[in-house]
């Protein structure tokens, strides 16, 4: 077992017992933390691994949420049945929208992905096909029904989000131990060298976007069910900036880093709720200081994740 696996399991253990000590308000905070962790990890696949400056991730998160909301409220699909489309639709949209821009570098890609997010928000707010509910969004989303049981309590929501995070961690572990995850790192570190080693930049960047969007969509679906409502402002560019920041502040491609980043960005504001908006001042400062003092994040990623039989001699 390597360090990442131990940290993942330890984290899952803590989060697994947390609901038995928390009241319902904290349970809701915990659920949101789990959901946002999934989104942050999916952003990390695109930004931290493939190194694509993607600042429109809230669009894919929102696409998953709205897919579940629309299919459930307008077409009467049970929530369970909306899960697959809530993953697949963001994936397909991500592939279609990023394929023409995937070759763009850094800042150029950043601007175009912000554009994607803005267009998505416009579609929602203008109620384009008469199904998004306009600026108010969609209310009255069902709860998950399984084997005749209704999973409506907060603790149900919590454990669904918990399972989703578990699946996400498993996917991240598989990705990092595969040629796909490594190819993303190679492209990130030196794209010319990666290319000359036979790595198709376009394919692996799109792969990152597809997986990232799919996971974000799953988190979105969970988010819609948790609040039984969706509205556009939860998926605006500011949210995308938050996900982007979580990864950079926490530590790109670092599993504990991204968790820490999510905690700092989403849970701390809840803890310091009484300070109202003044708390955001602290955040702004924290973001600035982190980037100056720890440019690779609070908990930077460590490479050298290789099989034990290759580790000999000096460490």
């Amino acid at each position, binding site marked *: 077992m390597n360090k990442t696996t131990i940290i993942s399991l330890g984290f899952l253990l803590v989060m697994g017992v947390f609901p038995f000590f928390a009241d319902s308000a904290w349970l809701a905070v915990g659920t949101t933390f789990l959901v946002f962790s999934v989104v942050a990890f999916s952003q990390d696949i695109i930004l931290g691994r493939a190194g694509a400056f993607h600042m429109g991730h809230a669009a894919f998160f929102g696409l998953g949420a709205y897919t579940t909301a629309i299919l459930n409220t307008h077409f009467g699909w049970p929530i369970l049945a909306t899960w697959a489309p809530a993953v697949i639709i963001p994936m397909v949209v991500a592939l279609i929208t990023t394929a023409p821009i995937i070759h763009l570098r850094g800042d150029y890609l950043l601007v175009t992905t912000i554009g994607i997010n803005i267009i998505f928000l416009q579609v929602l707010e203008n109620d384009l096909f008469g199904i998004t509910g306009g600026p108010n969004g969609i209310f009255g989303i069902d709860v998950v029904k399984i084997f005749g049981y209704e999973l409506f309590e907060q603790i149900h929501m919590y454990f669904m989000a918990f399972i989703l995070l578990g699946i996400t961690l498993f996917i991240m572990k598989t990705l990092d131990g595969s040629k796909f995850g490594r190819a993303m790192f190679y492209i990130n570190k030196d794209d010319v060298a990666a290319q000359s080693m036979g790595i198709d930049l376009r394919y692996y960047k799109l792969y990152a976007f597809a997986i990232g969007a799919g996971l974000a969509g799953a988190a979105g679906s969970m988010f819609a069910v948790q609040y039984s409502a969706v509205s556009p402002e939860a998926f605006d560019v500011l949210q995308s900036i938050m996900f982007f920041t979580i990864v950079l502040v926490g530590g790109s491609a670092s599993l504990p880093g991204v968790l820490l980043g999510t905690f700092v960005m989403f849970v701390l504001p809840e803890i310091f709720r009484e300070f109202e908006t003044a708390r955001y001042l602290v955040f702004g400062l924290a973001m600035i200081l982190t980037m100056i003092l720890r440019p690779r994040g609070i908990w930077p990623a460590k490479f050298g994740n290789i099989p034990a039989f290759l580790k*000999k001699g000096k460490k």
Partner: protein
Amino acid sequence: MSQYLLEIKNVSKFFSGLTAIDALNLKVKKGQIYGIIGPNGAGKTTLFNCITGIYTPEEGEILWHGKDIKGTAPHKIAGLGILRTFQTIRLFAEMSVAENIMSGRHIKSKQKWYNGIIPTPAYYKDEKYNWGKVGEYMELFGLSEYATTPAGDLSYGVQRKIEMARALAAEPELLILDEPAAGLNENETKELADIIKKVQAMGVTIMMIEHDMDMIMSLCEYMTVINFGAWICDGVAADVQDNPAVIEAYIGSEDEDE
């Protein structure tokens, strides 16, 4: 099937009116160590960039096993069995030596598209096999002790070795070395020459650019001299050394280093 592994036929490359390569011809036989020499700015690296798909030459043909590969994307060139190193070392500096060499196994890995998220028994087997190969190449280049060390933390000489090990891990037919001895001290250069011979003995054809004349004259079986992108002469070491045109090209241009 052509008797040559690689043929450059009348290749020209222009950069906004400037002629970087001028109707160049050369033929590389299988198993050869082929040298490309010439003064700085002669177009040697441009030629390598044309072969490896980074540039597309405007004119001529690049024949690989008799088939024109001009304009093929760089990642596909690697898939054909042409791997390269860079004049300015390009390693994945923050990643460990083992991970760097593993990038060479990328094109040899048989993982399916879904293996990025779903592990299968074949995926575990593939991973184990390829890491095993990485171990073999680290052994071969004496890099085992650095397996977990970030490549960027190591000395220049070691980094050169990692870059070659990485390219070799892809099991190329043709290895293109762009100034492999640049920045190395005398001992390291000697060691490098031995490694290059070892690589040739493994059945890999080698093309190299080098300024270290002792090294190139002792290693290369055949060489082409170019200047201002154009052919000056080719032949075995002795012929080239005595050729007045070559001497003139070198003495006539004492540029500083690139």
